[in-house]
């Protein structure tokens, strides 16, 4: 196949490694589908959307509030983390001296390395009591959004930094030579050309946000309901699995696999969206 045996060897090693990861993914999907099919064959689809509540031991399988909860918390966190992250990156790239920019980037890298459970613990000890002074009990959608914002913000800074660095240097130099203000340069040159990297990176981060489990479980209160306002507790699909998996049996267990399947579908959709953005902007 290849003129050198080394190349052939490398090729087959690589292809088998890739094969293993693909097979693992397929197995996971297959397992999710087969375990959830137990409940899908017994409980009609409309029950997950129109039952009175989520009480599997009493045959109530309302999943909708958790889908909504997962989406709300992700959208809320993205809403805060995207501007924070992008503005931090702009500051690093264009406004502060090099040494400060370097140290800011180091700090962001360290932040992104902190395990999310640590953020969760910080949320329980600091954010939740603080919010409780506004409206009890403090464990709420807002607490989740705040903690999640801190978890994904460093990732967005790193992505934005990367996207800004990839902007054609020639364009920047020309713009500076023309005497454009920094604002105009950022607004009219940097942003349009960094857009593609920013968007796909942000969508991938939102996948991470929706999949975050432990920190969210610790601060959200986990009551299965549609929140009346941001101070009310919610439960996400991920918390649902983590909370109940250890003790679930039969249909209950299968319902949790269904939660996982729904989550996987949402994340897959996000990844496909990210790919589309990348492709569509590449061709234009």
């Amino acid at each position, binding site marked *: 196949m290849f003129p050198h045996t080394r190349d052939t060897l490398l090729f087959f090693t690589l292809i088998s490694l890739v094969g293993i990861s693909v097979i693992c993914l397929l197995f996971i999907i297959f397992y999710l589908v087969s375990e959830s099919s137990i409940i899908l064959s017994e409980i009609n689809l409309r029950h997950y959307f129109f039952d*009175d509540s989520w*009480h599997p031991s009493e045959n*109530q399988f309302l999943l909708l509030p958790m889908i909504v909860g997962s989406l709300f918390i992700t959208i809320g966190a993205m809403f805060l983390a995207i501007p924070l992250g992008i503005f931090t990156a702009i500051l690093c790239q264009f406004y502060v001296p090099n040494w400060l920019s370097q140290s800011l980037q180091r700090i962001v890298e360290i932040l992104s390395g902190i395990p999310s459970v640590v953020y969760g613990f910080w949320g329980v000890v600091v954010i939740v009591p603080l919010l409780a002074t506004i409206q009890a009990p403090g*464990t709420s959608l807002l607490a989740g959004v705040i903690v999640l914002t801190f978890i994904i913000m460093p990732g967005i800074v790193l992505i934005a930094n990367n996207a800004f660095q990839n902007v054609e240097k020639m364009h920047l130099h020309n713009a500076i030579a023309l005497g454009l203000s920094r604002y105009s340069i950022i607004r009219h040159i940097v942003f349009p050309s960094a857009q593609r990297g920013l968007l796909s990176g942000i969508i991938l981060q939102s996948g991470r946000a929706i999949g975050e489990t432990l920190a969210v*479980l610790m601060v959200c209160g986990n*009551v299965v309901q549609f929140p009346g306002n941001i101070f009310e507790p919610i439960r996400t699909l991920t918390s649902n699995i983590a909370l109940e998996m*250890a003790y679930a049996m039969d249909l*209950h267990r299968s319902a949790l696999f269904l939660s996982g399947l729904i989550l996987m579908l949402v994340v897959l959709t996000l990844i496909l969206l990210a790919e589309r953005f990348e492709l569509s902007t590449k061709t234009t």
Partner: protein
Amino acid sequence: MASCSPQQPTPDLKRNKPITLSGKLTITGSSTIAPLAAELAKQFEKQHPNTKVDVQTGGSSRGITDIRRGTSDIGMVSRKLKSNESDLTSHLLAKDGVSIIVHKSNPILELSEHQIKQIYLNKIDNWKLLNGMDKKITVINKAEGRSTLEVFLKHFNLNNTQIKPSIIIGDNEQAVKLVANNPHAIAYVSIGTAEYDIGLGVPIKTLALNGIPANKKALISKQFPLSRELNFITKENISALTIAFINFSQSKTANSIIEGFGFVPTHP
């Protein structure tokens, strides 16, 4: 989890034991029992150097599933077996109480069963109504399937659908953490966990129930009403090693270990 490096038995030890046990035991199930089982396993391995006992957690239902599938030798279940689980045999290991906890700064000292029921039904929603502070009560409930939840519901004759919680959590430690950080919260946890954390200085306290204090003493004297069984479960045709381990866990030596974990031994 509780694996010791297997040692060669000395000739002396061999002579003292009528039968030499060897082999491997796998124990899975309830996270409440797991730390205790791991300690029991350690002592058992010391007595029988040719054995290895592997303890894994995953909840009571995993304990049952694994035994049914034959992937474990002993299951740990922190409740009574249900009627649809009659294919299994349970071996009572210890008893654990469930106690109501509040923040240390809460002036309330005891609640009647009726009051607790009213709180969990949201009919009493302010501490003021119980002569406490004028603050809304934060009701903490356990997630579906947890055995403390089942014990609680059964004792108070409630359905989980009736309860209107402010927060739902998973394990005991999480409840303790939340109550310690929220002066207006109420929760229920294993007495063992509560006493352990109070010993560490965590700002929570247990409430007396119907005038009976929630502590080990009341549990031993069988006065405290809210308690549950901690069981080892097996299927039929169990090995000599399994029998030996279960006998060991119900022996006098085991009792002091059980008490060390805040549970109450049932085989004096």
